Protein backbone atom coordinates (compact mmCIF):
# COMPACT_ATOMS: atom_id res chain seq x y z
CA UNK A 1 0.00 0.00 0.00
CA UNK A 2 1.24 3.43 -0.84
CA UNK A 3 -0.38 6.65 0.20
CA UNK A 4 -0.20 9.77 -1.87
CA UNK A 5 -0.87 12.93 0.02
CA UNK A 6 -2.15 15.74 -2.20
CA UNK A 7 -2.18 18.24 -3.69
CA UNK A 8 -1.12 16.49 -6.83
CA UNK A 9 -1.93 17.07 -10.42
CA UNK A 10 -2.52 14.41 -13.04
CA UNK A 11 -2.68 15.45 -16.65
CA UNK A 12 -5.97 14.26 -18.05
CA UNK A 13 -5.55 15.85 -21.44
CA UNK A 14 -8.05 18.07 -23.20
CA UNK A 15 -6.83 21.06 -21.18
CA UNK A 16 -8.67 19.85 -18.10
CA UNK A 17 -6.72 18.72 -15.08
CA UNK A 18 -7.61 16.31 -12.36
CA UNK A 19 -6.68 17.83 -9.02
CA UNK A 20 -6.35 15.51 -6.06
CA UNK A 21 -6.41 17.23 -2.72
CA UNK A 22 -7.22 14.22 -0.56
CA UNK A 23 -5.02 11.38 0.63
CA UNK A 24 -5.58 8.45 -1.67
CA UNK A 25 -4.67 4.90 -0.89
CA UNK A 26 -3.16 3.01 -3.79
CA UNK A 27 -3.23 -0.77 -3.69
CA UNK A 28 0.05 -2.33 -4.78
CA UNK A 29 -1.79 -5.47 -5.85
CA UNK A 30 0.36 -8.34 -4.53
CA UNK A 31 -1.32 -11.69 -4.02
CA UNK A 32 -1.97 -12.21 -0.32
CA UNK A 33 -2.17 -15.65 1.31
CA UNK A 34 -4.97 -14.29 3.54
CA UNK A 35 -7.08 -13.18 0.63
CA UNK A 36 -9.23 -16.31 0.53
CA UNK A 37 -10.11 -15.84 4.19
CA UNK A 38 -11.06 -12.21 4.04
CA UNK A 39 -14.79 -11.86 4.26
CA UNK A 40 -15.05 -8.20 5.14
CA UNK A 41 -14.34 -6.34 8.36
CA UNK A 42 -16.69 -6.16 11.32
CA UNK A 43 -19.45 -3.84 10.30
CA UNK A 44 -20.94 -1.97 13.25
CA UNK A 45 -24.07 -1.21 11.27
CA UNK A 46 -24.75 -4.88 11.03
CA UNK A 47 -24.50 -5.39 14.78
CA UNK A 48 -25.92 -2.18 16.17
CA UNK A 49 -28.74 -1.49 13.75
CA UNK A 50 -31.60 -3.97 13.64
CA UNK A 51 -33.69 -2.08 11.12
CA UNK A 52 -32.16 0.58 8.93
CA UNK A 53 -35.54 2.17 8.17
CA UNK A 54 -36.41 2.87 11.80
CA UNK A 55 -33.04 3.52 13.40
CA UNK A 56 -31.79 7.03 14.15
CA UNK A 57 -28.90 8.48 16.11
CA UNK A 58 -29.53 11.30 18.54
CA UNK A 59 -27.09 13.29 20.66
CA UNK A 60 -27.72 13.69 24.39
CA UNK A 61 -27.55 17.12 25.93
CA UNK A 62 -27.48 17.31 29.74
CA UNK A 63 -26.62 15.14 32.73
CA UNK A 64 -29.98 13.86 33.91
CA UNK A 65 -29.27 10.33 32.67
CA UNK A 66 -25.73 10.23 34.02
CA UNK A 67 -26.50 7.43 36.51
CA UNK A 68 -27.89 5.30 33.69
CA UNK A 69 -24.50 5.56 32.00
CA UNK A 70 -25.67 8.17 29.50
CA UNK A 71 -23.60 11.33 29.65
CA UNK A 72 -23.81 14.76 28.16
CA UNK A 73 -22.60 14.53 24.53
CA UNK A 74 -23.11 10.77 24.17
CA UNK A 75 -24.93 9.45 21.14
CA UNK A 76 -27.89 7.10 21.45
CA UNK A 77 -28.98 4.60 18.85
CA UNK A 78 -32.76 4.86 18.79
CA UNK A 79 -35.18 2.47 17.16
CA UNK A 80 -38.53 4.08 16.48
CA UNK A 81 -40.23 0.80 15.67
CA UNK A 82 -39.72 -0.84 19.08
CA UNK A 83 -42.55 -1.18 21.57
CA UNK A 84 -41.53 0.69 24.75
CA UNK A 85 -41.56 -1.51 27.88
CA UNK A 86 -41.14 -1.02 31.57
CA UNK A 87 -37.52 0.00 32.09
CA UNK A 88 -36.87 1.12 28.51
CA UNK A 89 -34.73 4.19 27.97
CA UNK A 90 -36.91 6.21 25.65
CA UNK A 91 -36.82 9.41 23.68
CA UNK A 92 -40.12 11.08 24.49
CA UNK A 93 -41.61 14.28 23.18
CA UNK A 94 -42.05 16.73 26.06
CA UNK A 95 -43.05 20.33 25.34
CA UNK A 96 -42.12 19.93 21.70
CA UNK A 97 -38.64 18.65 22.45
CA UNK A 98 -36.99 15.25 22.25
CA UNK A 99 -36.15 14.20 25.81
CA UNK A 100 -34.35 11.12 27.19
CA UNK A 101 -35.98 9.38 30.13
CA UNK A 102 -36.41 5.96 31.70
CA UNK A 103 -39.92 4.60 31.27
CA UNK A 104 -41.61 2.96 34.26
CA UNK A 105 -44.87 1.16 33.66
CA UNK A 106 -46.72 0.04 36.80
CA UNK A 107 -50.28 -0.80 37.74
CA UNK A 108 -50.55 2.70 39.22
CA UNK A 109 -49.62 4.47 36.00
CA UNK A 110 -46.76 5.45 33.76
CA UNK A 111 -43.75 7.48 34.83
CA UNK A 112 -40.89 9.08 32.96
CA UNK A 113 -37.89 9.16 35.24
CA UNK A 114 -34.52 10.80 35.03
CA UNK A 115 -31.54 8.82 36.28
CA UNK A 116 -30.69 11.63 38.63
CA UNK A 117 -32.67 12.43 41.80
CA UNK A 118 -32.46 16.16 41.13
CA UNK A 119 -34.97 15.86 38.30
CA UNK A 120 -38.66 15.31 39.07
CA UNK A 121 -40.66 12.37 37.69
CA UNK A 122 -43.32 12.97 35.08
CA UNK A 123 -46.41 10.85 35.73
CA UNK A 124 -49.30 10.16 33.41
CA UNK A 125 -52.24 7.77 33.71
CA UNK A 126 -51.43 5.68 30.63
CA UNK A 127 -48.80 5.15 27.97
CA UNK A 128 -51.17 6.62 25.38
CA UNK A 129 -50.82 9.98 27.15
CA UNK A 130 -47.18 10.13 26.12
CA UNK A 131 -45.59 10.60 22.74
CA UNK A 132 -42.75 8.11 22.68
CA UNK A 133 -40.51 9.02 19.74
CA UNK A 134 -38.33 5.94 19.98
CA UNK A 135 -36.59 3.43 22.21
CA UNK A 136 -32.85 3.69 22.82
CA UNK A 137 -31.03 0.43 22.17
CA UNK A 138 -27.40 1.48 22.66
CA UNK A 139 -25.48 4.34 24.12
CA UNK A 140 -22.30 5.39 22.36
CA UNK A 141 -20.62 6.59 25.52
CA UNK A 142 -17.47 8.67 25.26
CA UNK A 143 -14.94 7.10 27.61
Amino acid at each position, binding site marked *: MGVIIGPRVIEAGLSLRLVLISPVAVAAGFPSPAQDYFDGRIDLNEHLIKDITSTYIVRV*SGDSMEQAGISDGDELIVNRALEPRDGSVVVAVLDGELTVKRLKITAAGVVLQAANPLYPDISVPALADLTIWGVATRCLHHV
Partner: protein
Amino acid sequence: MSEARQQIALVDVNCFYASAERAFDPSLEGKPLVVLSNNDGCAVTRSPEAKALGISTGEPWFKIAPRAKEWGLVARSSNYELYGDISARVMELLGRYSAWLEVYSIDEAFLGIKGSPDQVVGLGRTIRTAVQRNVGMPVCVGIAATKTLAKLANRWAKNNPALGGVCRWESMDPESRELLMARLPVSEVWGVAGRLERRLNAMGICSILELSRADPVMVRDRFSVVLMRTVLELRGTPCLPLEEERVGRDQLIFSRSFSTPLTSVPEFRQVLSVYAQQASARLARHHLQAKVLTAFAGTSHYNPKDKSFPSVCVPLPMPTSDPVLLTRAAHALLPAIQDGVKYARAGIMVTDLRPSGNQQPLEPFTNPHEERGIGPLVEQISRKYGRSTIGLGFAGLRSGLDWSMKRGMRSPRYTTHWDELPVARAN
Protein backbone atom coordinates in the same frame (compact mmCIF):
# COMPACT_ATOMS: atom_id res chain seq x y z
CA MET B 1 -59.98 -16.00 -9.11
CA SER B 2 -60.75 -12.46 -10.13
CA GLU B 3 -60.72 -11.53 -6.46
CA ALA B 4 -56.99 -12.23 -6.28
CA ARG B 5 -56.27 -10.13 -9.32
CA GLN B 6 -53.36 -7.78 -9.38
CA GLN B 7 -54.16 -4.45 -7.75
CA ILE B 8 -52.06 -1.33 -7.67
CA ALA B 9 -51.47 0.64 -4.50
CA LEU B 10 -50.18 4.20 -4.65
CA VAL B 11 -48.49 5.18 -1.40
CA ASP B 12 -47.88 8.90 -1.06
CA VAL B 13 -46.48 10.81 1.93
CA ASN B 14 -48.72 13.62 3.14
CA CYS B 15 -47.03 17.04 2.86
CA PHE B 16 -43.72 15.22 2.58
CA TYR B 17 -41.18 17.99 3.23
CA ALA B 18 -43.23 19.47 6.07
CA SER B 19 -43.70 16.01 7.62
CA ALA B 20 -39.96 15.32 7.39
CA GLU B 21 -39.25 18.59 9.21
CA ARG B 22 -41.75 17.76 11.94
CA ALA B 23 -40.45 14.26 12.48
CA PHE B 24 -37.27 15.67 14.02
CA ASP B 25 -38.63 18.90 15.44
CA PRO B 26 -41.89 18.11 17.26
CA SER B 27 -42.24 21.77 18.24
CA LEU B 28 -43.44 22.32 14.66
CA GLU B 29 -46.45 20.08 15.28
CA GLY B 30 -49.65 22.04 14.86
CA LYS B 31 -47.89 25.19 13.62
CA PRO B 32 -48.31 26.53 10.10
CA LEU B 33 -45.17 25.50 8.25
CA VAL B 34 -43.93 26.10 4.71
CA VAL B 35 -40.88 24.58 3.08
CA LEU B 36 -39.26 26.82 0.50
CA SER B 37 -37.93 25.86 -2.91
CA ASN B 38 -34.31 26.08 -4.01
CA ASN B 39 -32.80 29.36 -3.03
CA ASP B 40 -35.70 30.13 -0.69
CA GLY B 41 -37.76 31.23 -3.69
CA CYS B 42 -41.29 30.09 -2.97
CA ALA B 43 -43.40 27.77 -0.84
CA VAL B 44 -43.27 24.25 -2.26
CA THR B 45 -44.81 22.37 0.65
CA ARG B 46 -47.40 23.68 3.07
CA SER B 47 -48.61 22.04 6.24
CA PRO B 48 -52.41 21.85 6.52
CA GLU B 49 -52.27 24.83 8.91
CA ALA B 50 -50.39 26.88 6.29
CA LYS B 51 -52.92 25.89 3.64
CA ALA B 52 -55.67 27.07 5.98
CA LEU B 53 -54.01 30.50 6.07
CA GLY B 54 -54.63 30.75 2.35
CA ILE B 55 -50.99 30.35 1.32
CA SER B 56 -50.96 28.78 -2.11
CA THR B 57 -48.36 26.41 -3.42
CA GLY B 58 -45.66 28.24 -5.36
CA GLU B 59 -46.32 31.52 -3.61
CA PRO B 60 -43.10 33.57 -3.51
CA TRP B 61 -41.55 33.80 -0.07
CA PHE B 62 -41.03 37.56 -0.29
CA LYS B 63 -44.81 37.92 -0.46
CA ILE B 64 -45.47 35.64 2.52
CA ALA B 65 -42.60 36.77 4.74
CA PRO B 66 -44.04 40.11 5.92
CA ARG B 67 -47.00 38.34 7.53
CA ALA B 68 -45.18 35.28 8.84
CA LYS B 69 -44.71 36.68 12.32
CA GLU B 70 -48.31 37.68 12.80
CA TRP B 71 -49.42 34.23 11.59
CA GLY B 72 -46.87 32.35 13.67
CA LEU B 73 -45.77 30.82 10.39
CA VAL B 74 -42.51 28.88 10.34
CA ALA B 75 -40.49 28.64 7.13
CA ARG B 76 -37.74 26.15 6.37
CA SER B 77 -35.31 26.03 3.48
CA SER B 78 -35.33 22.75 1.59
CA ASN B 79 -33.21 20.19 3.42
CA TYR B 80 -32.55 17.81 0.54
CA GLU B 81 -30.13 15.66 2.53
CA LEU B 82 -32.86 14.95 5.07
CA TYR B 83 -35.66 14.44 2.54
CA GLY B 84 -33.48 12.14 0.46
CA ASP B 85 -32.70 9.93 3.43
CA ILE B 86 -36.28 9.85 4.68
CA SER B 87 -37.44 8.98 1.18
CA ALA B 88 -34.95 6.12 0.97
CA ARG B 89 -36.19 4.75 4.29
CA VAL B 90 -39.81 4.91 3.17
CA MET B 91 -39.04 3.17 -0.13
CA GLU B 92 -36.98 0.47 1.52
CA LEU B 93 -39.81 -0.20 3.92
CA LEU B 94 -42.40 -0.30 1.11
CA GLY B 95 -40.22 -2.81 -0.71
CA ARG B 96 -40.83 -5.23 2.16
CA TYR B 97 -44.53 -5.33 1.38
CA SER B 98 -44.27 -5.97 -2.32
CA ALA B 99 -41.44 -7.09 -4.52
CA TRP B 100 -43.21 -5.19 -7.22
CA LEU B 101 -42.37 -1.58 -6.48
CA GLU B 102 -42.10 1.42 -8.72
CA VAL B 103 -40.64 4.46 -7.02
CA TYR B 104 -42.45 7.23 -8.81
CA SER B 105 -41.15 10.31 -7.05
CA ILE B 106 -39.36 11.30 -3.87
CA ASP B 107 -42.47 10.62 -1.81
CA GLU B 108 -44.66 8.27 -3.82
CA ALA B 109 -44.46 4.72 -5.05
CA PHE B 110 -46.71 2.27 -6.84
CA LEU B 111 -46.86 -1.25 -5.41
CA GLY B 112 -48.29 -4.31 -7.06
CA ILE B 113 -50.44 -6.16 -4.51
CA LYS B 114 -52.74 -9.16 -4.59
CA GLY B 115 -55.61 -10.38 -2.47
CA SER B 116 -59.28 -10.03 -1.68
CA PRO B 117 -60.67 -6.50 -1.26
CA ASP B 118 -60.43 -6.85 2.51
CA GLN B 119 -56.92 -8.20 2.31
CA VAL B 120 -55.58 -5.39 0.14
CA VAL B 121 -57.23 -2.72 2.28
CA GLY B 122 -55.77 -4.45 5.34
CA LEU B 123 -52.36 -4.41 3.70
CA GLY B 124 -52.82 -0.70 2.97
CA ARG B 125 -53.44 -0.08 6.66
CA THR B 126 -50.46 -2.20 7.68
CA ILE B 127 -48.23 -0.21 5.34
CA ARG B 128 -49.56 3.07 6.65
CA THR B 129 -48.93 2.07 10.26
CA ALA B 130 -45.44 0.77 9.46
CA VAL B 131 -44.32 3.94 7.68
CA GLN B 132 -45.68 6.06 10.51
CA ARG B 133 -44.02 3.91 13.15
CA ASN B 134 -40.63 3.37 11.50
CA VAL B 135 -40.08 6.65 9.71
CA GLY B 136 -42.62 8.94 11.34
CA MET B 137 -44.17 9.82 7.97
CA PRO B 138 -47.94 9.97 7.51
CA VAL B 139 -48.97 8.36 4.24
CA CYS B 140 -52.17 7.75 2.35
CA VAL B 141 -52.74 4.65 0.27
CA GLY B 142 -54.91 4.53 -2.82
CA ILE B 143 -55.72 1.09 -4.22
CA ALA B 144 -57.30 0.35 -7.60
CA ALA B 145 -57.10 -1.83 -10.68
CA THR B 146 -55.07 0.81 -12.55
CA LYS B 147 -52.40 3.36 -11.73
CA THR B 148 -54.58 6.26 -12.84
CA LEU B 149 -57.41 5.17 -10.54
CA ALA B 150 -54.99 4.43 -7.69
CA LYS B 151 -53.93 8.09 -7.96
CA LEU B 152 -57.54 9.19 -7.68
CA ALA B 153 -58.19 6.84 -4.78
CA ASN B 154 -55.14 8.19 -3.01
CA ARG B 155 -56.42 11.71 -3.43
CA TRP B 156 -59.78 10.68 -2.07
CA ALA B 157 -58.12 9.09 0.96
CA LYS B 158 -56.22 12.34 1.59
CA ASN B 159 -59.36 14.45 1.52
CA ASN B 160 -61.49 12.14 3.64
CA PRO B 161 -60.02 11.59 7.08
CA ALA B 162 -62.91 9.21 7.80
CA LEU B 163 -61.28 6.66 5.50
CA GLY B 164 -58.32 6.38 7.83
CA GLY B 165 -55.82 7.06 5.05
CA VAL B 166 -56.67 4.05 2.87
CA CYS B 167 -59.09 4.03 -0.04
CA ARG B 168 -59.78 1.20 -2.45
CA TRP B 169 -61.45 2.62 -5.53
CA GLU B 170 -63.53 -0.43 -6.38
CA SER B 171 -64.83 -0.62 -2.81
CA MET B 172 -66.51 2.76 -3.12
CA ASP B 173 -70.09 2.52 -4.29
CA PRO B 174 -70.55 3.40 -7.97
CA GLU B 175 -72.59 6.54 -7.30
CA SER B 176 -69.89 8.03 -5.05
CA ARG B 177 -67.26 7.28 -7.67
CA GLU B 178 -69.25 9.00 -10.37
CA LEU B 179 -69.98 11.94 -8.14
CA LEU B 180 -66.31 12.37 -7.38
CA MET B 181 -65.29 12.04 -11.02
CA ALA B 182 -67.96 14.51 -12.05
CA ARG B 183 -66.71 17.03 -9.50
CA LEU B 184 -63.04 16.86 -10.40
CA PRO B 185 -61.72 18.74 -13.46
CA VAL B 186 -59.71 16.78 -16.04
CA SER B 187 -56.59 18.58 -14.86
CA GLU B 188 -56.78 16.42 -11.73
CA VAL B 189 -56.13 13.32 -13.75
CA TRP B 190 -52.59 12.07 -13.71
CA GLY B 191 -50.85 13.39 -16.81
CA VAL B 192 -53.42 15.92 -18.00
CA ALA B 193 -52.51 19.59 -17.70
CA GLY B 194 -52.07 22.87 -19.48
CA ARG B 195 -52.74 22.89 -23.21
CA LEU B 196 -54.22 19.41 -23.17
CA GLU B 197 -56.76 20.51 -20.60
CA ARG B 198 -57.78 23.52 -22.71
CA ARG B 199 -58.18 21.39 -25.81
CA LEU B 200 -60.33 18.87 -23.92
CA ASN B 201 -62.44 21.66 -22.44
CA ALA B 202 -62.98 23.08 -25.92
CA MET B 203 -64.50 19.73 -26.86
CA GLY B 204 -66.79 19.82 -23.87
CA ILE B 205 -64.73 17.37 -21.82
CA CYS B 206 -64.29 19.17 -18.52
CA SER B 207 -64.68 16.65 -15.72
CA ILE B 208 -62.90 13.38 -15.15
CA LEU B 209 -66.21 11.63 -15.60
CA GLU B 210 -66.60 13.13 -19.07
CA LEU B 211 -63.08 12.08 -19.97
CA SER B 212 -63.73 8.52 -18.78
CA ARG B 213 -66.78 8.40 -21.05
CA ALA B 214 -65.03 9.75 -24.12
CA ASP B 215 -64.57 7.40 -27.06
CA PRO B 216 -61.06 5.95 -26.72
CA VAL B 217 -60.58 5.71 -30.48
CA MET B 218 -61.58 9.33 -30.97
CA VAL B 219 -59.22 10.31 -28.15
CA ARG B 220 -56.40 8.37 -29.79
CA ASP B 221 -57.02 9.96 -33.18
CA ARG B 222 -57.49 13.52 -32.00
CA PHE B 223 -55.01 13.50 -29.12
CA SER B 224 -52.65 10.62 -28.52
CA VAL B 225 -52.27 7.00 -27.56
CA VAL B 226 -51.13 8.24 -24.17
CA LEU B 227 -54.43 9.98 -23.50
CA MET B 228 -56.35 6.98 -24.83
CA ARG B 229 -54.60 4.87 -22.22
CA THR B 230 -55.67 7.36 -19.57
CA VAL B 231 -59.30 6.98 -20.67
CA LEU B 232 -59.05 3.20 -20.52
CA GLU B 233 -57.34 3.33 -17.14
CA LEU B 234 -60.14 5.53 -15.79
CA ARG B 235 -62.51 2.76 -16.91
CA GLY B 236 -60.52 0.22 -14.93
CA THR B 237 -58.50 -1.35 -17.74
CA PRO B 238 -54.82 -1.44 -16.78
CA CYS B 239 -52.68 0.10 -19.56
CA LEU B 240 -49.73 1.41 -17.60
CA PRO B 241 -47.65 -1.43 -16.21
CA LEU B 242 -45.50 -0.91 -13.16
CA GLU B 243 -42.02 0.08 -14.17
CA GLU B 244 -39.90 -1.53 -11.55
CA GLU B 245 -36.69 -0.32 -13.09
CA ARG B 246 -37.11 3.37 -13.32
CA VAL B 247 -33.81 3.47 -15.19
CA GLY B 248 -36.32 3.91 -17.96
CA ARG B 249 -36.39 7.52 -16.87
CA ASP B 250 -34.92 9.02 -19.95
CA GLN B 251 -33.32 12.13 -18.59
CA LEU B 252 -31.37 13.54 -15.70
CA ILE B 253 -31.49 17.23 -14.93
CA PHE B 254 -29.06 19.23 -12.83
CA SER B 255 -30.30 22.73 -12.40
CA ARG B 256 -30.53 25.38 -9.77
CA SER B 257 -31.37 29.00 -9.24
CA PHE B 258 -28.66 31.15 -7.73
CA SER B 259 -28.70 33.29 -4.63
CA THR B 260 -26.49 35.81 -6.43
CA PRO B 261 -27.04 36.01 -10.18
CA LEU B 262 -24.27 34.82 -12.46
CA THR B 263 -23.05 37.56 -14.75
CA SER B 264 -19.86 36.34 -16.40
CA VAL B 265 -18.56 33.56 -18.57
CA PRO B 266 -15.94 32.36 -16.06
CA GLU B 267 -18.63 31.85 -13.43
CA PHE B 268 -20.68 29.87 -15.91
CA ARG B 269 -17.69 27.80 -16.88
CA GLN B 270 -17.39 26.73 -13.26
CA VAL B 271 -21.07 26.10 -12.64
CA LEU B 272 -21.45 24.04 -15.79
CA SER B 273 -18.37 22.01 -14.86
CA VAL B 274 -19.92 21.16 -11.51
CA TYR B 275 -23.20 20.07 -13.08
CA ALA B 276 -21.43 18.00 -15.71
CA GLN B 277 -19.54 16.17 -13.00
CA GLN B 278 -22.67 15.60 -10.96
CA ALA B 279 -24.29 14.20 -14.07
CA SER B 280 -21.28 11.99 -14.68
CA ALA B 281 -21.39 10.64 -11.13
CA ARG B 282 -25.10 9.97 -11.28
CA LEU B 283 -24.86 8.23 -14.64
CA ALA B 284 -21.98 6.07 -13.44
CA ARG B 285 -23.86 5.09 -10.31
CA HIS B 286 -26.81 3.91 -12.35
CA HIS B 287 -24.57 2.29 -14.99
CA LEU B 288 -25.93 4.59 -17.64
CA GLN B 289 -24.48 6.54 -20.51
CA ALA B 290 -25.95 9.57 -22.21
CA LYS B 291 -26.06 10.32 -25.85
CA VAL B 292 -27.13 13.97 -25.73
CA LEU B 293 -26.38 16.84 -23.38
CA THR B 294 -28.38 20.05 -23.21
CA ALA B 295 -27.06 23.08 -21.33
CA PHE B 296 -29.25 26.06 -20.56
CA ALA B 297 -29.43 29.29 -18.59
CA GLY B 298 -32.06 31.88 -17.92
CA THR B 299 -32.75 35.24 -16.37
CA SER B 300 -35.30 35.63 -13.59
CA HIS B 301 -38.97 35.85 -14.43
CA TYR B 302 -39.22 38.55 -11.79
CA ASN B 303 -36.77 40.66 -13.79
CA PRO B 304 -38.51 41.39 -17.10
CA LYS B 305 -35.70 43.45 -18.64
CA ASP B 306 -32.56 41.78 -19.98
CA LYS B 307 -34.43 38.61 -20.89
CA SER B 308 -32.06 35.87 -22.00
CA PHE B 309 -32.66 32.13 -22.20
CA PRO B 310 -29.77 30.59 -24.10
CA SER B 311 -29.56 26.84 -24.56
CA VAL B 312 -27.52 24.39 -26.60
CA CYS B 313 -28.10 20.78 -27.43
CA VAL B 314 -24.91 18.78 -27.93
CA PRO B 315 -24.93 15.29 -29.43
CA LEU B 316 -22.10 13.40 -27.73
CA PRO B 317 -19.56 11.61 -29.92
CA MET B 318 -20.52 8.30 -28.27
CA PRO B 319 -22.79 7.24 -25.40
CA THR B 320 -20.81 8.28 -22.36
CA SER B 321 -20.73 9.06 -18.65
CA ASP B 322 -17.24 10.50 -18.85
CA PRO B 323 -16.89 13.73 -16.87
CA VAL B 324 -14.37 15.25 -19.27
CA LEU B 325 -16.58 14.75 -22.31
CA LEU B 326 -19.69 15.92 -20.48
CA THR B 327 -17.90 19.01 -19.16
CA ARG B 328 -16.67 19.88 -22.63
CA ALA B 329 -20.16 19.46 -24.03
CA ALA B 330 -21.67 21.65 -21.28
CA HIS B 331 -19.18 24.40 -22.07
CA ALA B 332 -20.73 24.71 -25.52
CA LEU B 333 -23.20 27.03 -23.81
CA LEU B 334 -20.50 29.57 -22.98
CA PRO B 335 -20.46 31.47 -26.31
CA ALA B 336 -24.21 32.05 -25.89
CA ILE B 337 -23.83 33.72 -22.49
CA GLN B 338 -24.18 37.49 -22.69
CA ASP B 339 -21.69 39.25 -20.49
CA GLY B 340 -23.29 41.48 -17.89
CA VAL B 341 -26.74 39.93 -18.02
CA LYS B 342 -27.92 38.66 -14.64
CA TYR B 343 -28.69 34.95 -15.00
CA ALA B 344 -30.80 33.51 -12.21
CA ARG B 345 -30.53 29.86 -13.17
CA ALA B 346 -28.53 27.42 -15.20
CA GLY B 347 -28.44 23.73 -15.67
CA ILE B 348 -27.67 20.76 -17.81
CA MET B 349 -29.79 17.85 -18.87
CA VAL B 350 -28.54 14.54 -20.20
CA THR B 351 -30.91 12.56 -22.36
CA ASP B 352 -31.09 9.51 -24.56
CA LEU B 353 -29.80 7.38 -21.70
CA ARG B 354 -28.81 3.78 -22.14
CA PRO B 355 -27.18 1.12 -20.00
CA SER B 356 -23.40 1.40 -20.17
CA GLY B 357 -21.49 -1.32 -21.95
CA ASN B 358 -24.46 -2.27 -24.06
CA GLN B 359 -22.50 -2.03 -27.24
CA GLN B 360 -18.77 -1.99 -27.60
CA PRO B 361 -17.67 1.21 -29.31
CA LEU B 362 -15.44 0.73 -32.32
CA GLU B 363 -11.79 1.10 -31.47
CA PRO B 364 -11.27 4.65 -32.81
CA PHE B 365 -14.14 5.91 -30.64
CA THR B 366 -12.97 4.43 -27.38
CA ASN B 367 -12.84 7.25 -24.91
CA PRO B 368 -9.43 7.52 -23.24
CA HIS B 369 -10.88 8.95 -20.02
CA GLU B 370 -13.36 6.18 -19.57
CA GLU B 371 -10.58 3.65 -19.98
CA ARG B 372 -8.59 5.28 -17.24
CA GLY B 373 -11.64 5.30 -15.01
CA ILE B 374 -11.42 8.99 -14.20
CA GLY B 375 -15.15 9.31 -13.58
CA PRO B 376 -15.35 6.51 -11.03
CA LEU B 377 -12.13 7.75 -9.40
CA VAL B 378 -13.51 11.25 -8.88
CA GLU B 379 -16.73 9.75 -7.52
CA GLN B 380 -14.86 7.42 -5.18
CA ILE B 381 -12.80 10.23 -3.75
CA SER B 382 -15.70 12.58 -3.27
CA ARG B 383 -17.70 9.85 -1.56
CA LYS B 384 -14.88 9.17 0.78
CA TYR B 385 -13.70 12.68 1.52
CA GLY B 386 -16.70 14.87 0.78
CA ARG B 387 -18.34 16.48 -2.19
CA SER B 388 -15.99 19.42 -2.57
CA THR B 389 -12.60 17.79 -2.10
CA ILE B 390 -12.10 16.91 -5.71
CA GLY B 391 -13.35 18.03 -9.06
CA LEU B 392 -12.23 18.33 -12.62
CA GLY B 393 -10.70 21.58 -13.74
CA PHE B 394 -12.83 24.54 -12.80
CA ALA B 395 -15.23 22.52 -10.70
CA GLY B 396 -12.28 21.70 -8.47
CA LEU B 397 -12.10 25.30 -7.29
CA ARG B 398 -15.45 25.37 -5.65
CA SER B 399 -14.85 26.63 -2.16
CA GLY B 400 -15.61 30.19 -1.21
CA LEU B 401 -17.67 31.05 -4.26
CA ASP B 402 -21.11 32.33 -3.62
CA TRP B 403 -23.27 30.95 -6.41
CA SER B 404 -24.40 27.93 -4.48
CA MET B 405 -27.92 27.70 -3.17
CA LYS B 406 -29.23 29.96 -0.46
CA ARG B 407 -30.69 27.79 2.28
CA GLY B 408 -30.61 30.18 5.20
CA MET B 409 -33.51 28.57 7.08
CA ARG B 410 -32.43 24.97 6.64
CA SER B 411 -32.91 22.62 9.56
CA PRO B 412 -30.01 20.35 10.58
CA ARG B 413 -29.24 17.43 8.28
CA TYR B 414 -30.32 15.14 11.12
CA THR B 415 -29.67 11.77 9.55
CA THR B 416 -26.75 12.32 7.22
CA HIS B 417 -24.29 14.54 9.13
CA TRP B 418 -22.66 13.46 12.36
CA ASP B 419 -22.34 17.01 13.66
CA GLU B 420 -26.01 17.79 12.97
CA LEU B 421 -27.70 14.92 14.86
CA PRO B 422 -31.04 15.58 16.53
CA VAL B 423 -30.55 16.60 20.15
CA ALA B 424 -32.34 14.71 22.91
CA ARG B 425 -32.52 16.69 26.11
CA ALA B 426 -31.43 15.26 29.41
CA ASN B 427 -31.84 18.32 31.59
